[in-house]
């Protein structure tokens, strides 16, 4: 199965019309939006659209801006809510101005940053050599660019917050934002009126770094992106490179990867439970969660040598064979530890009246909203969107196993919490079906010493711990990628935070943020 994509090239003038037509056709989920610098060809964007309700079939549209120095493209943020933040990302990295976009500010980098770092001819280190010692001035002005009658670019400014809004900064150093997220929150009394997420405090430039690395080297950075989906992220990139090169990995590797992915998912969901409890003040539940999580880490450590950063998947296989105790340990974990643990979680926290009052009906997102915002994973499924890629675009050994796709209806915080606890059970079920018959075979395919991916564009996606994790890879046939883009699972969740928290209490912001379950380094990359 090849994952090569042939994006349909569309002229900028027809772009909006074409995408609107595709959306009406059923491609109503903007899965990925990748900016790219094609040097001579110019700067542009690849839009990856998916049929969200039926087959999860994809189509890719490529659009190149006419002007190379000051590129402009029409916005699609009126069609998809998530395009708003994706286009800001592209503007930040490539300097492509989206005409008609309501809020053309930088997303990750400081406002006084010079240049656009992802352009091929930009040298960001030389222009920004000094470590800034002053606090960042965050502007309160939105820029909207329009083209006037003479064809000139004009900028309309408008304030981010209403004039009399009372704005409180939550973060970047706040224990309940799960990292270094900065939420500028306009409040009225105790009610949240508007949230303006300010990102980039842990933007490490992974995509740019990857462009100067060989393929095996790029793998190392994936684990550090979403560290609670380390297996899955690396799986996605390995799968993308393997399929692009036409390597078939052995059934043994497929099964091992599936089991590892599910163990990682359990690990992530337990941590989700623990942190949510901690944020809401239940320290005992936090300790219960971490007690069981250590069991997963012990299994990982025996086979891979790593606890959190695992470095296990490799191009064409996995790094080490399974530890002799693996089967025994995993069986003990899924049959003894986890069912007992889940029972305890439910009795200590799920039924807790404080938690129920703080979560039922708090921060609901409807099915239309999650599709428009591209919130996949537990958040999407809680709103009733069947978006599990393990079902809809099966990869690895997922077509050999039977499991239920957990969905709920109302999409509030309680549902988002329940989806994840139920998914732990399903993950155990998947492992139970595979653990007894791991096929024999090689754990590593023979590769040439230098890995080179044939020329073309490729896209692969897996179901990560918190949603669809896509990898867009463009190769020119070299030993390093020309463009490597990750579809972050967390960015849509943060984008939807404004919608979910509006008119709820500040204290509910913690619940909503906790149940959305985002990981900041995965958002910022």
């Amino acid at each position, binding site marked *: 199965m090849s994952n090569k994509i042939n994006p349909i090239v569309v002229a900028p003038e027809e772009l909006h019309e074409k995408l609107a037509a595709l959306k009406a056709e059923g491609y109503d989920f903007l899965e990925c939006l990748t900016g790219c610098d094609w040097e001579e060809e110019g700067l542009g964007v690849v839009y990856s659209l998916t049929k969200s309700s039926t087959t999860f079939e994809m189509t890719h549209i490529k659009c190149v801006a006419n002007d190379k120095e000051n590129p402009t493209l029409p916005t699609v943020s009126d069609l998809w809510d998530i395009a708003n933040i994706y286009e800001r990302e592209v503007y930040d990295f490539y300097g492509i101005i989206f005409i008609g976009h309501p809020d053309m500010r930088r997303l990750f980098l400081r406002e006084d940053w010079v240049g656009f770092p992802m352009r091929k001819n930009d040298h960001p280190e030389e222009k920004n050599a000094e470590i800034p010692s002053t606090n960042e001035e965050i502007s309160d002005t939105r820029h909207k660019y329009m083209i006037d009658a003479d064809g000139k670019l004009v900028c309309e400014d408008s304030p981010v917050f209403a004039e009399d809004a009372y704005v409180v900064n939550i973060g970047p*150093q706040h224990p309940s934002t799960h990292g270094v997220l900065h939420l500028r929150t306009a409040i009225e009394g105790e009610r949240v009126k508007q949230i303006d997420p300010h990102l980039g405090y842990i933007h490490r430039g992974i995509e740019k*770094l990857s462009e100067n690395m060989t393929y095996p080297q790029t793998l190392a950075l994936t684990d*550090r992106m979403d560290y609670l989906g380390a297996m899955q992220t690396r799986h996605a990139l390995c799968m993308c490179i393997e399929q692009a090169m036409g390597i078939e990995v052995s059934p043994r590797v497929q099964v091992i990867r599936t089991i590892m992915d599910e163990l990682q998912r359990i690990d992530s969901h337990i941590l989700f439970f623990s942190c949510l409890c901690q944020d809401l003040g239940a320290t005992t539940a936090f300790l219960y969660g971490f007690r069981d999580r250590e069991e997963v880490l012990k299994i990982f450590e025996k086979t891979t040598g790593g606890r959190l950063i695992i470095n296990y998947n490799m191009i064409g296989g996995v790094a080490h064979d399974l530890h002799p105790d693996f089967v025994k340990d995993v069986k003990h974990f899924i049959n003894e530890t986890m069912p007992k643990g889940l029972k305890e979680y439910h009795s200590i926290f799920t039924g807790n009246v404080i938690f129920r009052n703080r979560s039922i009906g708090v921060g609901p997102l409807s099915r239309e909203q999650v599709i428009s915002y591209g919130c996949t994973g537990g958040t999407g499924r809680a709103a009733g969107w069947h978006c599990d890629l393990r079902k809809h675009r099966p990869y690895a050994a997922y077509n050999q196993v039977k499991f239920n796709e957990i969905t709920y209806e109302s999409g509030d915080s309680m549902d988002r919490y329940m989806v994840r606890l139920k998914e732990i059970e399903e993950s155990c079920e998947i492992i139970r079906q595979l653990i007894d018959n791991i096929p024999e075979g090689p754990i590593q395919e023979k590769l040439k010493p230098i890995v080179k991916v044939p020329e073309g564009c490729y896209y692969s996606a897996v179901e990560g711990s918190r949603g669809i994790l896509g990898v867009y890879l463009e190769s020119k046939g070299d030993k390093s990628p020309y463009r490597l883009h990750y579809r972050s699972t967390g960015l849509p969740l943060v984008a939807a935070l404004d919608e979910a928290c509006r008119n709820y209490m500040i204290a509910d912001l913690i619940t909503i943020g906790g149940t959305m379950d985002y990981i900041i*380094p995965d958002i910022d990359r």
Partner: protein
Amino acid sequence: MAVRKSAPVINNIPYEEFNDNATLEKLIDELNAGGVSAAVAPLDKLIDWGRSNSLWPLTFATSCCGIEFMAVAAARYDMARFGFEITRNSPRQGDVLLVNGTITTKMAPVVKRLYDQMCDPKYVVAVGGCAISGGPFTKSYHVVKGVDKILPVDVYCPGCPPRPESFLYAMMQLQRKVRVENFFGTTNRKQKDPYKETIGFGSENYAELLNQQEQA
């Protein structure tokens, strides 16, 4: 009469088994050179004992190492055994800044500010490859190549991320450092008032400036 400082003792781990004793001995020699009065030395010891056993970390984590830090705080590794269990969310109440994870150029002023907000005596531990040197991201355009570029670091704890054991080991190294500290006359010395000499104590401007500073 002067009392000489001796090597710090950590329960259950012999002194020789610690890494990098040379640096510590150099530090002790430097402190001894000044001489310590016989009257306050036992008091110093008492305060250092109390301090080293109640180092409260500031809850500060930017990336992966923060998850390992949570594991250290949880039941299996249980840093409460050493007195580090109370993590503080406010820099005013923290004793030690554990730099868990990558510091980007955008984050650098924020970290600096957090450090400035902490009360003396304060310590910094650089946890993980990223905080020490930039780690795997050292070639990135947006990463500070080591937190020691912006803060004075007391202990470096290598690893990506460090194992919980090495985390605890780094904290014990910090404890050893704290245990040889002089308390009277040095670490709690008040910062010199910057306005006293330039403007003149007691003048009208002085009170105004003090007011302004307090409001800020």
